[in-house]
């Protein structure tokens, strides 16, 4: 049970993100929900790369005789964090444009494209 605590944290984070996405009506809150899911996915990637009692995989002045952590998840998470920044910046600027044009960011009033 203790072994997969981080994965339970991931499940909770993604669950919270999906909850805000489905039930919240405010555009900014939906953007926050997506960021929550994104941080959950990043946490999941990073926790896969840990090795018990290991050190960061950098050889400059590394402590003697220690094993090293798996390096690939760190590279993958770096990429997905920058992608997260890009998507959040774009979503928030679209929400700003919608506010500029419709004067509201509540999804019920914004629903012009009904049929």
């Amino acid at each position, binding site marked *: 049970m203790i072994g997969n605590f981080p994965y339970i944290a991931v499940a909770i984070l993604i669950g919270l993100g999906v909850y805000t996405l489905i039930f919240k009506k405010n555009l900014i809150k939906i953007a926050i929900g997506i960021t929550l899911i994104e941080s959950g996915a990043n946490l999941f990637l990073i926790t896969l790369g840990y090795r018990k009692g290991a050190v960061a995989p950098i050889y*400059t002045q590394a402590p003697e005789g220690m094993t090293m952590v798996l390096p690939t998840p760190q590279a993958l998470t770096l990429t997905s964090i920058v992608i997260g920044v890009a998507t959040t910046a774009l979503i928030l600027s679209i929400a700003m*444009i919608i506010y500029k044009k419709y004067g509201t960011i509540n999804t019920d009033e914004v629903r012009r494209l009904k049929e």
Partner: protein
Amino acid sequence: MKNEMSRIVRTVTTLIYGFIIVYGFYVIAHGHLTPGGGFQGGAIAASAFALLVVTYGDQGVKDFLKKDILSLVESTGLVLFIAFAFFGLGVTFFYNFMANSGGLFGNSAIIGINPGDLNTGGIIPIMNIAVGLEVLAALGVIILTMSVGSKNTKKKENS
């Protein structure tokens, strides 16, 4: 409503924003030795831009952070990055042709734990610098555009 911060914030910002940018470039330049690299260093330097925009407002920053210079820096960073990927095309795309080749950034590192020699790593430091410039300028443009964009949405509200 003057949106500038109080005097304390402005004096502190004028003092430290230079150091933040220098620290950002340190993280970019030593990407292949110490933890960090192009993206992290670029983000640190861009945080200095955010600090300036918050304290002086995007009108006050207009002479220091011009958007077209930033987009020029961004394009040069990206073109530098993909050019060094193209140079490796003799063998394959993204081939590290400068590693262990003796020239610039060409020394081969001492295997195992070593104090770290800046002149190693082949095309990795150059790509670090290219991506650092790109992220620095890209985040700068995003901060400026969104701060300008968010201002005139308020006007729409009371019209």
